[in-house]
């Protein structure tokens, strides 16, 4: 296995673990951690392809912007989770079902 294939494998495994965390966990903050793992998997993929490209700087630039967007997403998601916690006194996504008909 070459290095780039190892990177692909790590990226795929991280993405699948992220999806499992998002589907399985009940706590909102755990779901946020799963989303972070999936974003990191995408970033690893960009870096892996940039290793073989003659214009490698573009892949690295794209993942740089992705990191900034991930930081912004984490800030907004945590603000929403705090707000939900203040209203419902829980972060369990199963108990937040007021709109369920």
């Amino acid at each position, binding site marked *: 296995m070459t290095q780039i294939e190892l990177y692909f494998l790590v990226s*795929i495994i991280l993405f699948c673990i992220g999806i499992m965390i998002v589907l399985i966990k009940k706590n909102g903050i755990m779901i946020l951690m799963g989303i972070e793992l999936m974003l990191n998997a995408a970033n690893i993929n960009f870096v892996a392809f940039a290793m073989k490209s003659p214009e490698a700087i573009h892949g690295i630039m794209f993942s*740089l912007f992705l990191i900034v967007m991930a930081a912004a997403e984490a800030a907004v998601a945590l603000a929403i989770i705090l707000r939900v916690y203040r209203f419902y006194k829980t972060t369990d996504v199963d108990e937040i079902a007021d709109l369920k008909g």
Partner: protein
Amino acid sequence: MLDAGTIAVYSFAVITVISALFVLITRHILHAAFGLLVCLLGIAGLYLLAGAEFLGVTQLLVYAGGILVLIIFGIMLTNRADGKTIKAGNHRVIPGILAGLAIFLLFTQIYSQSSFRDSLRSTDNNIPLMGHPVESLGVEIMTRYLLPFELIAVILLVILVGSLFISKKENDTN
């Protein structure tokens, strides 16, 4: 064959995957946050060994230094301070694992049938010798990527102010 670089790449990959699995398995939410920290450090090592030094350092600063602290703050603020250990429950365990495995099989199948697979395998210099110099990265940011750079700066500012507004107390008049 097994030089120091290859061993380092494999060990960082193993650290990353094992700590991500620990995040999935553990039921204690603070332990999950620390597992995520180890996972992000391993990913930073992978970036460094792929020749993306600036990206690795950014990963350390932004993820390990910023987002992890934010997540731990969130855990502290959303849990009752009655001294109980904080458990994060599971639901839909079997369908979740099945969906994850299905996506794993899908991605590996896509890769094994992709047209770029052979061209990626043919060249054998895997680790770039020089890496990408930070100087050219800075020049690119200030020339070709100037508009996205400024846009993302404005977006980050707006989002941080907005998240402050969302999370402030309702009865806070001033």
